[in-house]
């Protein structure tokens, strides 16, 4: 009896020690930042942590700026950002940072034109710049009519309501980059950023978040808004039309999978080793002009070896086509997978984490 009792106690002790050892090894990581990347991150974390129970990843949707800032300070291990770090940001960071693309996202320009919402109007960067700076005030302005001669009679003499994001947003970043790259007067004026100093247009309205943009566009006839591609279902449900945008080659294209991949492929060869490159206004006949890499901003130096290892494993899984870059995740948010050569560059960067 006594022997059995001792055996039981020893057994429990062993189990307990194994259990505590297991929990003691749980690595806790924090991902914070871009609200555009947040849905995908959550889809990833849910499945990844099921297969990797030793890791706990907390995700937060706070904004690209916060993501970069907390990745730099070390509060977060992964800073999600729709924008790569600028030269001055890299210079100001106390330790080396990595900008690792995780997926490709795109953006459409929606409008609410009674009678024309089932039609894809043709719009160009300069025209959009004119609308958002107030020089183009009415839907039947000659520059819009010139691009859409087939609908010249249907375009009404109504004031355009340009809707922009009131919160700091990667969508604003890529939209204003498109305006900057295509229109010199915009480049010398508001330029681009996650928030810009929007020109004072009397009818302009700011909305909070992509759903706010959808709601505002839906509720205001004759309005125009830039909305992330993850919300294409919502905008279709709301009955909003979306535009064909003029790309660098002068063609007007829709944000289809083919056109987005064409744009990514056109710039793959130009992607530098640190992978900081804008995919906006890509060359190529079919390229859709508003696409971007979604970045994971990471510090090269992690506080300890376990965190570094766990981080490397998660990021490698995320960019691989059997892992995070599988279509079952990307399709849910209408993102596109990373091209092969970009994945190779990312792997090289991930290797630098220690």
């Amino acid at each position, binding site marked *: 009896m006594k022997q059995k009792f001792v055996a039981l106690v020893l057994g429990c002790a062993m189990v307990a020690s194994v259990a505590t050892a297991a929990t003691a090894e749980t690595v806790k990581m924090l991902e914070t930042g871009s609200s555009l990347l947040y849905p995908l991150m959550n889809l990833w974390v849910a499945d990844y942590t099921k297969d990797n129970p030793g890791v706990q990843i*907390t995700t937060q949707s706070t904004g690209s700026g916060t993501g970069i800032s907390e990745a730099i300070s070390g509060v977060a291990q992964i800073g999600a950002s729709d924008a790569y770090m600028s030269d001055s940001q890299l210079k100001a960071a106390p330790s080396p940072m990595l900008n690792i693309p995780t997926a490709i996202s795109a953006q459409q320009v929606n409008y609410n034109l009674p009678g024309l919402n089932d039609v894809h109007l043709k719009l160009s960067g300069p025209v959009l710049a004119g609308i958002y700076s107030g020089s183009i005030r009415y839907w039947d302005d000659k520059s819009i009519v010139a691009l859409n001669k087939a609908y010249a009679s249907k375009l009404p003499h109504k004031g355009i309501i340009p809707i922009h994001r009131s919160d700091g947003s990667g969508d604003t970043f890529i939209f204003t980059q498109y305006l900057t790259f295509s229109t010199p007067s915009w480049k010398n004026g508001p330029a681009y950023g996650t928030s810009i100093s929007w020109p004072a247009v009397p009818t302009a309205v700011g909305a909070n978040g992509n759903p706010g943009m959808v709601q505002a566009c839906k509720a205001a006839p004759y309005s125009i808004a830039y909305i992330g591609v993850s919300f294409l*279902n919502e905008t279709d449900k709301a009955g909003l039309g979306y535009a064909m945008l003029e790309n660098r080659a002068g063609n007007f294209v829709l944000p289809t999978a083919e056109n987005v991949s064409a744009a990514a492929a056109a710039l793959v060869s130009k992607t530098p080793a640190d992978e900081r490159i804008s995919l906006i206004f890509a060359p190529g006949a079919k390229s859709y002009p508003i696409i971007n890499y979604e970045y994971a901003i990471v510090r090269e130096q992690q506080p300890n070896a376990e965190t570094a290892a766990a981080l490397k494993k998660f990021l490698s899984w995320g960019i691989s086509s059997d892992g995070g870059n599988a279509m079952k995740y990307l399709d849910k948010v209408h993102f596109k997978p990373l091209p092969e050569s970009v994945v190779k560059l990312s792997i090289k960067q991930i290797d630098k984490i220690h």
Partner: protein
Amino acid sequence: MKTLIDERRFRAMRSNVAARSAIGSAWWLGSALALAASIAMLFALFWFVLVRGVPALRPEIFVTVTNGISGGLANAIVGTFMLVLGGLVLVMIVGVGSGIWLTAFAGPRMVEVTRFLTDVLSGVPSIVVGYFGYVVLLGYLGWGFSLAAGAIALAIIMLPYVVRGTDLALIAVPQELREGALALGSSTSRSMFMVCLPSAMPGILTSVLLAVSIALGETAPLIYTAGWSNYMPSAAPFHSPVGYLTYVVWTFINQPFAQSHALAYAAAVILMAVIFLTNVVARTVVDVAAQRLRG
């Protein structure tokens, strides 16, 4: 000598009773409408979130944690409770204490200054409290996203309401009660704890409930102090982010998935239900206690 009621005005008006009654009735109707409108607004808001949250209101959400974009609300509910409880403990000590000092010990000059500062504190935007907490507690003191930081941020937001409420409630204690206790030979502290505070308890409770309600609905300060976590909160006061319901409402509403939206509205419904229950329970308890005191 100035009397409270201006007799001249009343005498002049005594003659036209009918007119005055009519005007009075019109105003009483207006006041009834104002009250009805206030209550109707509450129901309208509750209905607004209920209708949209119904798809997500299943029993499982109370035991499942969020998975970032959908799932359950267990971690957020527990987190909210812990944060508000922590804040409440802090604010009861500091707030009621300040109120007691204002009515029992402070000279008139200090009373004015303290009341003034309390009113100023109530005007500090919650985002400033949050960022203040972020820089001082997370950055300078190195606590990281934590229960303690979140509780302190909430306590700062609740403080003006509790101080002012305790102040007003203690003032309203009839002078005779106060003086009676003193005349019977009790000390200030005795009369405070045995006579004034019990008598003022309903008023203090109103302000505490008001403060808790406001704290439950705050998002901005918690984003920068408690952070957010998809996991059940641990009891660790430092270095461990905590989830809370308002984050779900604020963030999930911005997701491109319908189930996220439903969960966001469900979180709002639960929040409002929790506030309702807290109010009802606390009021009943205090009413019963007050009855026993009187009886």
